[in-house]
């Protein structure tokens, strides 16, 4: 490792960077890069290139790829560089390789060897560099080659290595869960690592594991809570602080995990209430990071079993977000609101105007988020307004991805909440008209089914009304010039089935329209086929009804078009023939049907038969006899896939693993896999006669599988129900314990509604002055907005009533004062709410605080429990970790205060670059805040920078004033 490590930069490199920096257009940049590629191709294969030079070439290659050009000619040199002895050169090699190659690249095999060697290095930074590469380059097949070493490194004395080893293991888990399934317990162990960095990194894999299987990690709730408590109490080293918040990124990750663990689990949630409440109180809502943690708290509160006090804090935080001027906070507020209304729908009312403002904001991001919120709060009372707005927005945007999404949401809402058939049909028409080609074909099928089956009630007149209104609207829409294919298919189908059903339109009128469609969209074979089929149906109904069919000349043309189609088929021969053949067959059929007599036609094409069920025997029971016979003849019974690769095999695999591990050190999965399958296969072969024969029906395995999953399904029922629908959830939480309390909070929120809705933020005055303010404010709010608010959040009568009760009492004002003095708000709130609360709530409330104060006495006790029987180790860990807590702040504190400022930038670039940290040391007692505040225009700095730039030969010229103006402040 050279002491001048890496500060050697040639004139060539400086020139390259300079010219790239000065490039005014993409074309110019491309030219520079292309000539650079030529230079590099020549230079890089010269013999005996010094290391430093090579490193520079590789970085130039990185530039080439970063700017979008192929640098594959130099990949092999990057691979070679990973073999280098110098740490800096090696690490640059690894960096380049991870940037250039994907895990399936042919060159990876050359690197695996180097990685294996480097993982054993004495220098921990070499190990770290190799681990970085492991996280990007090792694929499923190469995992076994490095896995044993990674496992060893989990106990490395250096925390940086342990951390990266954990991440590598996480990566393996993501790539191939089965390859590390026996190592999952390591994540639990590393959670109690005495280095906070390792602990923090372990939270990522644990989050994944918990997402996949919540129930296996319920025992960790107490540990996570105690870790979060310690973090919030600033017991981590100061180095993890960010803007005066203690380790906010770790807090956020922990809150995410708690949200998962507490979802639908009252007992687990009760353990969390205290700590989450604490964080709510401690968060500084004036900084971004404080708000980030607050937002995560809201997410957590709305995910875990509801607690009235926390919900109140969450609601307060949300209203602060929404009232903020910052669009970012508004966005977070809207998102948080969307989460909270699942539990307490009444909260949305307070923020109606804020929501409408966001909806009408020119910022597209905010608008979309608000539509997401509206989607979540749609009810049958406001569905019309919301869907209409969504459709208007859908028409206005060009982004197909989002257009598709919003279209499918419109359809979903319309299907769920449609107030009338008329409205439903009209809405669907609009969606199809404007986003028809983007809508999933299933939606079209759904619509057809809905029209055919009606809305479920056994009300035939309503159903036929629906159909005739559909027919009417479609006949009207057919006048439009260009319609999406999917929509036309629906129209043709409906006209064919129900066009003549109510007798309003004559068969000739409908067939005329259908022929128009077939002609106008003659390029679309599917539409044509639908049209021909529809024609056939109409004629069939007519014939069956005994009426005489008068073939229109165009119909004759249409139906007998098949000769032309046949020619086309022959011409196209292979491609897309299927479509033409369909069409051809339909045309033939039509011709044949027309020639039949009424009775025959009626039995071929009965009227309104689309709803008749066709029974499908999914169990294929008619094959039972055949299977029985085959098994008796010695055939192997069918084993469902779920059992073939299910839990059974994994446990087998694990056992096997333990055996093998003791016998030899280095294992490669490639050798084991066949063994494992052999083992799995032996039992069925040898035991076939005894064990598996009494399983004659193919149904059996599936049944047994179902029964095993049933318990978990039922226990998950609560959580899945949560996501389903608002009303159901409200009832679910409401009936048992919550109902009384929500009703009381409801009444208070009703009262506060006015204070919050019509006033934006700055009122601490008494109720009377605010009242006048209110009325003034109310004038400012346009009647349109109010109307919209009324239709979104409740009937117009309701808002009137609210404005009448606005000046009711001093309660709202006290509420407002509360939110302005966040420190005391919790105590005040608790005083306020506790007398109102119903006995069961008090109990709910009391329990967690009692419970959690006990563990808080010694948080490490719980961590101890995490460790497996090796209590000795754990106690040792405990000692050292407590020591770390008391000791480390000083060391880390010193550290944070060192280099930040760096005002001593030397004028000479080379010396300046060769020892900047040294100068830092001299100058460096400025804390990080100074560095932060000194950001932006700083005369001295910019002068120095200017000198530096000139030194490098870059002259701030008039051609690129912008670049330098920005660079130099």
């Amino acid at each position, binding site marked *: 490792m050279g002491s001048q490590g890496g500060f050697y930069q040639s004139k060539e490199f400086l020139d390259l960077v300079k010219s790239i920096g000065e*490039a005014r257009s993409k074309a110019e940049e491309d030219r520079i890069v292309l000539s650079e590629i030529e230079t590099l191709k020549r230079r890089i294969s010269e013999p005996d290139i010094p290391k430093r030079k090579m490193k520079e070439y590789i970085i130039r290659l990185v530039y080439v790829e970063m700017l979008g050009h192929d640098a594959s000619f130099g990949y092999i040199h990057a691979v070679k560089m990973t073999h280098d002895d110098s740490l800096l050169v090696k690490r640059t090699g690894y*960096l380049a390789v991870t940037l250039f190659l994907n895990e399936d690249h042919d060159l990876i095999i050359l690197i695996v060897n180097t990685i294996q060697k480097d993982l054993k290095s004495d220098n921990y930074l070499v190990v770290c560099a190799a681990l970085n590469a492991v996280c990007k380059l090792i694929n499923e097949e190469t995992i076994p080659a490095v896995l044993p070493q990674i496992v060893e490194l989990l106990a490395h004395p250096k925390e940086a290595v342990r951390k990266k080893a954990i991440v590598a293991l996480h990566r393996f888990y993501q790539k191939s869960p089965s390859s590390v399934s026996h190592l999952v317990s390591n994540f639990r162990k590393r959670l109690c690592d005495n280095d906070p960095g390792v602990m923090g990194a372990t939270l990522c894999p644990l989050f994944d594991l918990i997402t996949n299987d919540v129930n296996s990690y319920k025992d960790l709730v107490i540990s996570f809570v105690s870790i979060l408590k310690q973090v919030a109490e600033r017991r981590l080293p100061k180095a993890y602080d960010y803007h005066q918040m203690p380790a906010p990124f770790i807090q956020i990750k922990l809150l995410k995990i708690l949200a998962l663990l507490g979802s639908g689990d009252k007992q687990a949630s009760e353990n969390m209430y205290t700590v989450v409440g604490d964080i709510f109180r401690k968060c500084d809502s004036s900084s971004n990071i404080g708000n980030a943690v607050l937002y995560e708290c809201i997410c957590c509160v709305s995910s875990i079993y509801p607690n009235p006090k926390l919900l109140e804090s969450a609601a307060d935080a949300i209203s602060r977000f929404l009232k903020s001027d910052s669009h970012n906070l508004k966005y977070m507020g809207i998102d948080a609101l969307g989460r909270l209304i699942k539990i307490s729908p009444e909260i949305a009312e307070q923020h109606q105007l804020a929501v409408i403002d966001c909806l009408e904001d020119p910022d597209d991001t905010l608008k979309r988020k608000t539509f997401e919120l509206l989607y979540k709060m749609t009810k049958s009372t406001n569905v019309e307004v919301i869907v209409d707005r969504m459709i208007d927005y859908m028409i206005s945007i060009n982004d197909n991805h989002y257009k598709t999404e919003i279209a499918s949401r419109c359809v979903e809402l319309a299907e769920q909440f449609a107030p009338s058939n008329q409205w439903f049909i009209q809405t669907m028409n609009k969606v199809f008209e404007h986003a028809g080609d983007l809508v999933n074909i299933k939606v079209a099928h759904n619509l057809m089914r809905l029209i055919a089956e009606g809305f479920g009630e056994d009300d035939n007149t309503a159903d036929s009304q629906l159909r005739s209104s559909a027919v009417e609207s479609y006949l009207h829409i057919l006048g439009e010039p260009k319609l999406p294919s999917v929509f036309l298919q629906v129209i043709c189908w409906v006209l064919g089935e129900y066009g003549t059903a109510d007798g309003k339109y004559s068969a000739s009128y409908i067939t005329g329209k259908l022929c128009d469609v077939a002609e106008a969209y003659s390029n679309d074979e599917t539409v044509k086929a639908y049209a021909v089929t529809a024609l056939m149906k109409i004629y069939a109904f007519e014939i069956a009804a005994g009426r005489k069919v008068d073939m229109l000349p165009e119909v004759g043309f249409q139906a007998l078009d098949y000769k032309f189609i046949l020619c086309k088929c022959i011409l196209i021969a292979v491609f897309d023939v299927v479509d033409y053949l369909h069409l051809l067959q339909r045309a033939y059929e039509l011709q044949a049907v027309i020639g039949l007599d009424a009775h025959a036609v009626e039995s071929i094409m009965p009227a309104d038969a689309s709803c008749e069920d066709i029974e499908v025997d999914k169990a294929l029971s008619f094959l039972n006899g055949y299977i029985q016979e085959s098994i008796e003849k010695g055939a192997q019974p069918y084993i469902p896939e779920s059992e073939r690769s299910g839990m059974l095999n994994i446990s087998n695999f694990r056992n096997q693993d333990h055996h093998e591990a003791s016998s030899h050190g280095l294992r490669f999965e490639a050798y084991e896999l066949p063994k494992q399958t052999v083992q799995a296969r032996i039992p069925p072969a040898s035991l076939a006669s005894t064990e598996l024969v009494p399983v004659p029906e193919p149904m059996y395995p599936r049944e047994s599988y179902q029964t095993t999953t049933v318990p978990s399904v039922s226990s998950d029922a609560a959580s899945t129900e949560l996501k389903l629908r608002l009303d159901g959830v409200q009832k679910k939480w409401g009936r048992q314990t919550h109902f009384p309390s929500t009703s009381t909070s409801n009444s208070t929120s009703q009262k506060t509604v006015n204070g919050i809705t019509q006033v934006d933020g700055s009122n601490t005055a008494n109720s009377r002055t605010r009242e006048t303010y209110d009325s003034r404010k109310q004038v400012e709010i346009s009647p349109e907005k109010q109307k919209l608010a009324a239709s979104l959040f409740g009937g117009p009568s309701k808002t009137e009533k609210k404005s009448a009760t606005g000046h009711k009492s001093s309660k709202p004002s006290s509420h407002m004062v509360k939110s302005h003095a966040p420190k005391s708000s919790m105590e005040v709130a608790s005083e306020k709410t506790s007398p109102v609360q119903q006995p069961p709530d008090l109990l709910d409330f009391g329990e967690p605080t009692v419970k959690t104060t006990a563990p808080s006495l010694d948080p490490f006790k719980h961590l101890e429990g995490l460790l497996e029987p090796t209590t000795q180790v754990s106690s040792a860990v405990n000692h050292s970790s407590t020591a770390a807590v008391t000791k480390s702040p000083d060391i880390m504190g010193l550290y944070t205060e060192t280099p930040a400022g760096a005002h001593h930038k030397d004028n000479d670039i080379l010396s300046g670059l060769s020892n900047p940290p040294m100068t830092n040391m001299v100058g460096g007692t400025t804390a990080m805040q100074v*560095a932060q505040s000194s950001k932006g225009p700083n005369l001295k700095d910019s002068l120095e*920078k200017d000198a530096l730039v000139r030194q490098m030969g870059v002259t701030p010229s008039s051609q690129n004033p912008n670049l330098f103006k*920005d660079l130099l402040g």
Partner: protein
Amino acid sequence: MGIRFILMVNKQGQTRLAQYYEWLTLEERRALEGEIVRKCLARNEQQCSFVEHRNYKIVYRRYASLFFLVGVDNDENELAILEFIHLLVETMDRHFGNVCELDIMFHLEKAHFMLEEMVMNGCIVETSKANILTPEMVMNGCIVETSNANILTPVQLLEKTS
């Protein structure tokens, strides 16, 4: 996964640093960068620092002429990512001293090394500036390591030599 990619782009839309945590081909990267840079650069200061794009979100922040763009999954905390960007800038500030576009251009590998310490496998794994910069300082020979594996801070080192 969390973070899908981190980009640094100047206001002319030229890429200054790109790190992807899921594999994309060169063409895909080019297309994606073009698309999202166009989207983000067109926005003004008052608008949200978040942009939805396909099935993920981009959180971005502007520092003088440089835009930092981070692509994240939909369930990620946007504000936290916004602050993560700032942490990254603070860290680079501490190392380079009032960092600017040219610092990153001339020391591309160092910027990458810092990112490697902070984000692995799409997860934020380190947020302590001291820990992030330690390997960099060791590599530059500014910190001597004893066999007892305890890293000496520059201050301690000074004390030792004096």
